[in-house]
């Protein structure tokens, strides 16, 4: 079977609630209906109302006429005698019984080719039998909110899972807005994984707490099978766990620790262990961590792991990595090397990168060092300059040498001038991120380091292949947004933040521009619009609802002017599943009404709202399976970051049982 194409499409959140909803109450679970014999892949992606998921009592059991055997699993109800053989091999035998005119064998094969989770979702809703076949043939599941289900529920539905991705903390935690003790422990999940999930090879935990004990349990159970482990923006573990993984997981091809907080114990011995124990490693990523890594051990790793394609490290001087690059013949993706100021005479003009290198992110690179990239500009497909010290002019000089860039990540020091160079040069650009630089007017950032409507329009016209575009602007006009709607037809993810630097914005409100953008970008799935009060009126917000038909995720900041805007918005956005609102002025009542009205809403995060006098207006959105939590503001901090938050999400697991003091579950209450 073809490998699951997880990275092919943009990293969309592949569904929130693991158990798919039927749009009906459990009593009316769909019965098999006559269906055309020719099942095609073009099942329309209906937007389903977020109605009641099925409670465990109506979990479908396979009808007796479908012999479905699973080797090595303990799936209840489906085991039909043990077949001899290697329990780890993924073999399922479907009988030749017909279901809706399609033999099970064929059904299993067809479903196996369908990897897109939205398509799988549709398939699983056809009837109980198809739900079961889908469940057994599903290889990968993403649980976007770990508290929306329980580990054993997940296993009961998908016993043959090979790959699992879990996310817990709200996205706001990447902006330091979530209390440290909020939760998101991986322990219950890892306990379940160690007891069941016999086919699991790939595990990705994002924004979770993982302890050394958790890793030990995981290693004990899965070391012989683990192919990929990603502890992505996690915390709670130490380098001892890394050493354990290195020693025991001989099949590990991917070890990803980006931006995690790792406690350092025995220096970088874990790296030496990895270098000496593993020969199949393809990806090692500890970028943006504080882990130390000596060049000697890195060299050892590269020499022993001949398949290494991605190496992303923390700080290490480029001058110490010369030998490494001479040895790494398969390396494609490198990040983290930095530059030593003491090496004043360091001439980087002749620095050697292997010809295979296509993606680079170099830390603290300055004007004098950027020549290191000049000979490789034409081969570069991805360039990350977010953590460099380059000026606007430097960006222009560099980008103009990189006509084959597909991914570019910079701070807004690139300026309009730099973006014009991008538009002229990078015709194949697919992903562009323009992050927010320093606000310090004292001159740490280049004076030309401002992005405005000029840069936006240039990029829109010059880079028609853009699929992902995140940009922080200092000024904006409607015409710029209209240009994006007119030219950036491939956009599926667009995020704009209007910074607070300029007091006066050229053209406000942006209602018409937003409307044009949403109408023009028909593939838009994710949309963020973080502006200032007055930049998007109530009418503009109603446009977002009316024309944001395909958007599944949205972040709105300072949007709308009153509750009317939110209510108008909530009448639209039929596909909206995840909504984040920050710094808006809506009342609790309006938020509650909007949450109920948005047809597909499964997850709501709000910071900054008008509280009701009694604080009970929020309860208007109480409904079954809808967890409502209140995150209390940090009492020790007077700063606004400590403002209260509301988090509401669908869950089959009931209220959280591990809430810290800062998290107050408003509904449901345990035991009532």
């Amino acid at each position, binding site marked *: 079977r073809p490998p699951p194409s997880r990275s092919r499409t943009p990293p969309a959140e592949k569904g929130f609630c693991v158990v798919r909803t039927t749009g009906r109450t459990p009593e009316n679970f769909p019965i098999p209906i006559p269906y055309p014999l020719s099942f095609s892949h073009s099942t329309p992606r209906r937007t389903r109302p977020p109605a009641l998921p099925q*409670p465990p009592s109506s979990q479908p059991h396979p009808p007796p006429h479908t012999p479905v055997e699973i080797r090595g699993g303990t799936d209840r109800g489906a085991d039909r005698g043990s077949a001899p053989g290697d329990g780890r091999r993924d073999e399922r035998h479907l009988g030749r019984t017909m279901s809706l005119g399609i033999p099970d064998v064929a059904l299993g094969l067809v479903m196996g080719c369908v990897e897109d989770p939205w398509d799988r979702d549709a398939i699983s809703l056809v009837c109980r039998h198809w739900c079961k076949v889908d469940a057994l043939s599903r290889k990968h599941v993403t649980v976007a909110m770990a508290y929306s289900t329980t580990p054993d529920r997940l296993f009961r539905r998908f016993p043959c899972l090979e790959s699992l991705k879990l996310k817990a903390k709200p996205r706001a935690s*990447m902006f*330091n*807005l979530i209390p440290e003790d909020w939760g998101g422990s991986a322990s219950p999940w890892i306990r379940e994984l160690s007891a069941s999930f016999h086919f699991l090879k790939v595990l990705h935990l994002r924004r979770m707490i993982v302890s050394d004990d958790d890793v030990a349990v995981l290693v004990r159970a899965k070391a012989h099978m683990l192919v990929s482990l990603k502890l992505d923006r996690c915390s709670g573990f130490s380098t001892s766990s890394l050493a354990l993984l290195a020693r025991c997981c001989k099949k590990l091809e991917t070890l990803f620790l980006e931006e995690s907080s790792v406690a350092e114990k025995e*220096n970088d011995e874990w790296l030496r262990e990895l270098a000496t124990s593993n020969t199949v490693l393809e990806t090692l990523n500890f970028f*943006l961590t504080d882990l*130390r*890594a000596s*060049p000697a051990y890195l060299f050892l790793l590269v020499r022993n792991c001949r398949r290494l394609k991605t190496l992303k490290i923390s*700080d*290490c*001087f480029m001058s110490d990595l010369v030998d490494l690059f001479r040895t790494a013949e398969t390396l494609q993706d490198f990040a983290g090397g930095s*530059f030593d*100021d003491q090496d*004043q005479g360091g001439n980087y003009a002749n620095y050697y990168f292997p010809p295979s290198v296509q993606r680079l992110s170099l830390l603290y690179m*300055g004007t*004098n060092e950027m020549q290191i990239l000049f000979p490789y500009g034409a081969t570069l497909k991805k360039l990350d300059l*977010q953590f460099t*010290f380059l*000026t606007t002019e430097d960006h222009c000089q560099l980008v103009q040498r990189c006509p084959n860039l597909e991914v570019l990540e910079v*701070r807004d020091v690139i300026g309009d001038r730099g973006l014009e160079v991008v538009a002229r040069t990078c015709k194949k650009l697919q992903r562009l991120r323009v992050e*927010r630089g*320093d606000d310090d007017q004292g001159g*740490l950032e280049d004076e030309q380091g401002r992005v405005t409507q000029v840069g936006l329009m240039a990029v829109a016209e010059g880079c028609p292949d853009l699929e992902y575009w995140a940009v922080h602007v200092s000024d904006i006009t409607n015409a710029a947004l209209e240009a994006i709607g007119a030219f950036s037809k491939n956009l599926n993810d667009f995020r704009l*933040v209007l910074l607070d630097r300029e007091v006066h914005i050229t053209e406000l409100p942006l209602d018409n521009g937003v409307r044009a953008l949403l109408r023009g970008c028909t593939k838009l799935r994710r949309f963020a619009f*973080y502006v200032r*009060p*007055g930049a998007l009126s109530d009418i503009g917000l109603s446009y977002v609802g009316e024309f944001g038909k395909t958007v599944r995720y949205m972040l709105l*900041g300072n949007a*709308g002017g*009153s509750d009317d805007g939110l209510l108008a918005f909530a009448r639209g956005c039929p596909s909206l599943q995840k909504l984040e609102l*920050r710094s808006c*002025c809506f009342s*609790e009542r309006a938020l509650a009404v909007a949450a109920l009205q948005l047809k597909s809403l499964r997850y709501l995060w709000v*910071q*900054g709202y*008008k*509280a009701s*006098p*009694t*604080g*009970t207006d929020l*309860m208007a959105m*109480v409904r*079954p399976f809808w967890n409502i939590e209140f995150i209390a*503001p940090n*009492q020790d901090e007077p700063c606004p970051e400590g*403002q*209260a938050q509301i988090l509401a999400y669908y*869950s089959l697991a009931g*209220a959280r*049982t591990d809430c810290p*003091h800062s998290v*107050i*579950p408003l509904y*449901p*209450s*345990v*035991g*009532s």
Partner: protein
Amino acid sequence: MGAEQQQQQQAAGGSRFAAAFGLLRQYMREQPGAGGGGMVTVGLMPGGGVDGVDAVTPEQRIRTMELFPQQAGTVRGSHERTGPERAPLTIFFGGRTFVFDDFPAEKARELMQLAGSFCAPPPVSDAGAGAEPACQNAPGQPCLSDLPIARKASLHRFLAKRKSRLAAADPYPAPLAAPGAGAAKETAGKAVPEDGGAPWLGVNSALQLN
């Protein structure tokens, strides 16, 4: 009631409430058991549980609470008070939330009387829930929340590192900043690695303020 009146009342009642709150704190300190751990839950909708939720263990007491004081006016749904003596108390005041477990009923009543006596009717004015932003803007304008735009943690760290590298090595901007011993203070708490893994000790001279 106008926003100005509300603000006035808040300002006037602020210091007196602070005094009352000081008494409350004192009481809390005297009671060692109070304010202990345990989940604070609110039961506002009876029978709103979820099928399949694990049964409450014997150690967990079902506690329901009135989220806001009686004087505040409407309390939605029916609520129960379990136990005649103690119940959790939550106070929202001025953008902050205070939660106290096992708060005795008489003290709660006293507190509510005290709070109630500060403000002229309507009594709901200073019982606003935590997230009331400080709106300082002309009437007719939308409410300007005071939340600054949050920055991504990774970039925040990078920019902070850059600033401290400049400040530590060279307080006076000079063309070629020599890395000084002062830069080492940024590495406080970290052992200096044996070989070249300490770029933060130097300052990138390419960073010129032009």
